């Protein structure tokens, strides 16, 4: 059935709610004014320049980028074999393993972050690189496992079976046949895991300190204190970055498939 005009109207309303904040961020980020004023008194790139010369935010950006790179590599290395097992092997307790590996995603990050602070602080590991990496791995590994499971599952089993028939050992077949074929999925997983870590705010809020802090945390604190177009320029930069990353994933794998069901 063709969608009725009523459905179109209400769906449009829903899309407006979903997309309006992004549109306003884009508009305000090029405002020449001093506040989040609508309509902007004029247009300029002054807040993007101010953003680039903000030392706190730029050094937090460096920390976040490095942290996200470390975390996505670790999550793939640790989660990849687990995902292969879930997607390809038959063994007792496979369903339980899958549930265990996705359990952290069920709990609120606020509670996870508090728990991490409470056990890491007494050991002097709060506000350190190992502490932050551990905290981010907690959400990144389950995420990587989920995407990699989908990626491995999309490679036909027959290819591996053919390799066995031709004399390859199971390990050789997995490394030489399945892994290369799952490579686009692995890249997608790396990109999305990078984004998960790069945007992680709540767990980080508990684990940062004055000398080691991440971009989302500094952005959150900035937005708590002041609201000027600088924060919109930062928000817009992050949105553009996320859109580029997602476009990359969409090309490689198809996003809806990558997110899994």
């Amino acid at each position, binding site marked *: *059935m*063709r*969608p009725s005009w009523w*459905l179109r109207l*209400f*769906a449009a*309303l*829903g*899309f407006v709610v*979903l997309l309006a*904040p*992004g*549109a*306003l*961020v884009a*508009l*305000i980020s090029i405002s020449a004014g001093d*506040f*989040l004023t*609508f309509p902007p008194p004029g247009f300029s790139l002054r807040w993007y320049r101010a953003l680039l010369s903000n030392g706190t935010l730029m050094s937090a950006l460096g920390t976040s980028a490095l942290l996200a790179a470390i975390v996505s590599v670790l999550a793939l290395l640790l989660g990849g074999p*687990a995902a292969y*097992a*879930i997607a390809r*092997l038959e*063994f007792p*307790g*496979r369903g339980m*393993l899958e549930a*265990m*590996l996705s*359990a*952290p995603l069920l*709990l*609120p990050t*606020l*509670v996870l972050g*508090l*728990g*991490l602070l*409470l*056990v*890491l602080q007494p050991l002097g590991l709060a506000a350190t690189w190992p502490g932050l990496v*551990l*905290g981010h791995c*907690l959400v990144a*590994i389950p995420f990587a*496992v989920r995407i990699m499971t989908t990626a491995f599952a999309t490679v036909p089993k027959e290819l591996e079976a053919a390799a066995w028939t031709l004399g390859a050992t199971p390990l050789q077949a997995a490394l030489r046949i399945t892994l290369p074929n799952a490579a686009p999925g692995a890249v997608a997983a790396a990109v999305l895991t990078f*984004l998960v870590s790069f*945007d992680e*705010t709540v767990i980080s*809020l508990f684990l940062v300190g004055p000398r080691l802090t991440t971009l989302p945390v500094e952005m959150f604190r900035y*937005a*708590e204190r002041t*609201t000027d177009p600088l924060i*919109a320029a930062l*928000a817009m930069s*992050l949105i553009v970055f996320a*859109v580029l990353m997602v476009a990359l994933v969409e090309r490689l794998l198809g*996003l*809806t498939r990558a997110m899994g069901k």
Partner: protein
Amino acid sequence: MTGWLLAAPALAVLAVAFLWPMAGLFRISLNRTTETGAMEAALTTESYAKLLGDSFTAELAWNTLLLAGSSAAVATVLALPVALMVRAASPRWRGLLALLGIAPLLVSATARLVGWMAILGDQGLINAMLMGSGLRDTPLPLINNWTGVRIGLVESLMPYAVLVLIAGLGRLDPRLEEAAATLGAGRARTFLRVTLPLAAPALLAAWLLTLVLGLSSFITPRLMGGGRVFVMATEIYDLALEYVDWPGAAALAMLLLGALVLLMLLRAVTTRGAGRRA
């Protein structure tokens, strides 16, 4: 066995990053906070008793439930036409519409809330329109209060509702609606008597998921509430980091966790029912 062996590294890291902190959280909730505010090792339920005996906790819990329940309901209702539109769209458009429907998931929450500030603030889009058209002389307070928090939360929960509804509606046979139309039912009647009843389990699943997510939301109440909106999540954060009352924060977190686990069990039961029917 090979399966568990391959998963061992991931499981080991999660044990350290997940089980240990959760055990620590429970253990510390049984410690004592002394008069001076210092933490003392103990095995007592004092922190729980203090929270449960305080009328502020009851108010927090009620406010949190009200906020999450209403925002989840509005998010689910707004997500339904979006999901129906994705379902009705031609294959060419379906992917793009679905992507737009879940797009906010991929953008940091703070970035989206900055957009809402520009829409709802005293000098924002809506107040500019209201005052420009002469409908109001003073700005309508849409931010730094419950209204702002509710609007921000609706938007951040909607993509999850869209995901659940797209999955749920995808299992419905469109021929049922076509049959209703063939038998003479109008569009409104078809929607109310066929589509809506069939979509009910998916709607319930979407509401329960967004409710669970809304109950523990922290960034939205904090930023849109401007420090004037208190929910369980903001209180846990303040207890832990502002007042450094770890047993209190841990006990409140355990109470929140208990409520969430109950709701997730309920969700597991209802969504299993939905799966069987489809």
